[in-house]
Every structure is written in structure tokens, then in C-alpha cells.
């Protein structure tokens, strides 16, 4: 049998069109996988002890972060605040977007909030230039307790009821949003069909 020679230009012409045919097949699968990873990220966020304590607001169980009272009260949130909501909303905006087809390459990009954007959106109630979300990871002082104990037996329900000189104790920082985002990025990088 004689060799079949396909002209180079013909191969190139076919390759150039590959992307158009690949995209409709690949995209739904990618979106499905992406949604799964995103759900895992949100569930990791929801189940993190910091999120649970902030959602719970009060100190019914011993806190993993502060020795007295609740994390919510330590930071100095108002009872009506739902601090984790904005973080969850921002994480929820993560999306997979089709960008372009170039020859055989179909280009998708994943958009998600950066740490910097998340930190900017989560100001400490007593020092708005700082982020409580960052503070959970790097540590923060307990000045928020002065807000919690302000008026009507602590509006946040979980502050420390004390006068002036008693310190709020040491804050135990922990990996939080950085770890969640890192896990998310790792899964995205390993995503295969």
C-alpha cells in the first residue's frame, strides 16, 4: 500500500477549525466540573470554624480563636452584622468564562476574587483600614471588645463584659481564606476532562 501524503496546508486548515468543534463538546463538561469545585470551595468556607463562629455570633461553645467570649464579639461586630455574607457572596461570583478560540486552542479562564479584594471588603469595625478576614489569619488585637461591650449589655451578644483594664486575651490565628483559595486554585489547575 502506498503512503498517503496529506498536504501540510490541508492539515493546518483542519487544525485551525478544530477549536470550533471542540468547544461545544468541552464547555458543558468544564462548566460541570467547575461548578463542583466551586461548590466544594463554598462548602469549605461554610464549614470552617471561623465562618461557623461568626455565623453563630454567640459563644455557646468554646471558641477556637479567643479564650473568652465569642469571635464575633472579640472583633466587635454589631448584633445585626452578618460579616461572612459578603465573603460568601464574593466567592460565589467565581466563574468560568469562555475567552476565545485560536486554531485548535479553546481558551477558558477562571475568575475568582483575589485575597486583596476580599480583604478590602471586610473592614474591622474599629479600624476600617484593616481587614478582619486578614486578621483571622495574621492575628489581631482585641480592641473590638470595647465595641461589643458598648451599651445594652453587649449588642453583639458575645463580647466580654468587663471594665477597662482587663485584656481580652490572646487571639489564636488560623489559616482561613488563603487556604480555601489555595485549595480552589489547586483543584482548578488539576482540572481535566
Amino acid at each position, binding site marked *: 500500500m502506498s503512503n498517503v501524503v496529506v498536504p501540510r496546508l490541508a492539515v493546518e486548515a483542519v487544525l485551525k477549525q478544530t477549536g470550533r468543534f471542540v468547544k461545544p463538546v468541552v464547555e458543558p463538561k468544564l462548566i460541570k466540573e467547575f461548578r463542583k469545585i466551586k461548590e466544594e470551595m463554598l462548602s469549605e468556607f461554610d464549614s470552617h470554624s471561623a465562618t461557623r463562629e461568626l455565623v453563630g455570633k454567640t459563644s455557646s461553645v468554646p471558641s477556637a480563636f479567643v479564650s473568652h467570649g465569642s469571635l464575633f464579639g472579640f472583633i466587635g461586630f454589631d448584633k445585626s452584622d452578618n460579616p461572612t455574607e459578603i465573603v460568601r457572596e464574593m466567592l460565589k461570583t467565581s466563574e468560568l468564562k469562555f475567552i476565545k478560540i485560536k486554531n485548535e486552542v479553546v481558551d477558558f479562564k477562571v475568575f475568582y476574587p483575589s485575597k486583596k479584594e476580599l480583604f478590602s471588603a471586610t473592614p474591622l469595625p474599629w*479600624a476600617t483600614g484593616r481587614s478582619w478576614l486578614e486578621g483571622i489569619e495574621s492575628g489581631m488585637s482585641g480592641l473590638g471588645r470595647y465595641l461589643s461591650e458598648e451599651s445594652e449589655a453587649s449588642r453583639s451578644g458575645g463580647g466580654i463584659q468587663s471594665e477597662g483594664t482587663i485584656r481580652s486575651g490572646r487571639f489564636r490565628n488560623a489559616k482561613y481564606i488563603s487556604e480555601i483559595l489555595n485549595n480552589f486554585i489547586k483543584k482548578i489547575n488539576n482540572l481535566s476532562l
Partner: protein
Amino acid sequence: MKPQFQHTLVTSFYLWFDNYLQKKGEAYKNTTGIFYNMTDDRLDSSYNVYSSPYKQFVFDSGLHTGVVNSQGTEGPIVLDRISGQRENGNSFEIPQGTSGLKIDYENGRVFFTGDNNSNLPGDSLSLSGQFAVKDFNLYVTNQTEEDLVVEKFATNNRFGNIQTSGVAPYDQVLPAVFIGAETIKNEPLAFGGLDTTKTNVKAVVMTTDLYCLDCVLSMAADAQKRSFAKVNFSDFPVTEFGDIKTATYPTGYSYNQIEKSNTSEMFHIEEVNVSKLSDRVTKKVNPDIFIGFIDFEIHKYRSPRAE
């Protein structure tokens, strides 16, 4: 133990920030002031101690530029002599380094053992001198932010009713900036063991003057992406007496000179965040003081395992 990276960083940062406030912000006030006789149990009894109503004095002689600035001066005056009158009315002048004269720039005072003729000057001299007092004292601290905010520091007034006695030595007084290195982390940067050492330096600014607080916070924010020179721990310019190390700086201490000669090893200010303590908390803990926080992230490229 010999000094480590953190000592060098804090020394370098302290001197840079001090210079930055005074040079860029003109955070000082030139004045002619009286020195009042004081006692200090921590000093040898051979010293006669005279203290001004202020602390800290500017000790950077390189800031006197010869160019008239917004204050109408040519820069801060670094105290290098005192003048006065004896009980018998005779006037005298003692330059730094003679008659055992030491100038404690940190505590705003002078002490000496004798006059030009080695005679003890006595306790009832009338002494005065020209000096620049910093608008913000600068302290290195290990106290937590919360402890600093809650602590009731005395205020050493720079304006208005100035006290007519010497300021007590050693105590930290306001207005002041307290600085401390909180965390250090080495992150791999390149083959061959080169790391980026990331250090978080936190500063707490405390003052009775909101205008001055805004000045410091604004200047600090503008310091992002600046670099500053490395100064070894042993080259910190003042002695245990608060005086200039004349052996290290025989012609006087000048940060500008250090900056010019130390261009190879620099620290880089990657990020700065500034914030004010909310009024609601201030009113509860320290109603007469305005408080701000500055978070510096400082980078240094180094090979920690090869040092």
C-alpha cells in the same frame, strides 16, 4: 548572642522612619529652652542633670540643609552646646564633649561633671540651649497594640502651655509612634538559596492632635514602594546615655550620609496600610488621644542559610 536580621531591620527601620518624618514632614520644632536641675538615681552621682521640658530631641545633624523650609528655618537645630549663668552672674558655654557634657537626646536633657575649668557647676545654674524637639517621639516596643492603646501615657506638650520643669526621664510620653516587628517569614525566591524575607512592622501612632495624626498616616501611606538603607545594629547612633556615638559618628550623625553610603543593601517597603482607631473605641479607652495604626510589609532579598 550576636545581632540577627531582626535587629538590623528594626534599627534600619527606626532610623529611616525618624528621618522620613523629619525630612519629608518637617516633624520638629526649633526652640530655645531652659534646662532645669533634676535628680536621677540611675546616673552616677558625679553627674549634674539638667532637663528641658521636652523629649525627644532631634539628633540628625544632616537635616540642617541651609535651605529655608516651610517653618522659616533651615532645618532642625541639633543641640551641641549649652550656655548659662553661674550664681555669681558669670556666663559660660559648654560645647558637647567638654566638661564631661553629655546630651541625652532621647530624654531631652544634658548632664555633665564639671565646667571648662573642671569646676563643678553646682545645682543652681541657669542653663539654656537651642534644640529641635520632635513632633513625634519614636519608640521601639514589644507591647501589644491593645496594651499600648489602653495604657495611660503622659503627654509631653509641644505647644501651648509648656511646663516649667524638666521632663521626667525614661518614661515613654506622647505624642509618639511605637514600632515593633511582629512577624517574619522567609519565602523562596530563586535558585541558590535566595529568599524574600517578609517582615510585618506595625506602628501605633498616638497624639492629642488630629492634624498631626493625619500627617503621619498620610506620609506612611506614601512610603509604599520606597526603599531604605540597611544600618547595622551596632551602628545605632546613640549610646546608653542617649548621646551620639562619637567614635562611630565623629562629625555628627547624618542619616543622609548613611543613605548615600549604604546603597547596596536595601529594605523594600512592599505594602503599607493605614487606619484610625474608631471614635467609638477611642472614647471608651482613651478619650483625649487620637490613635492610628500603620502596617508595613517590608521585603528583603537575602540568603538566610548562607549568612
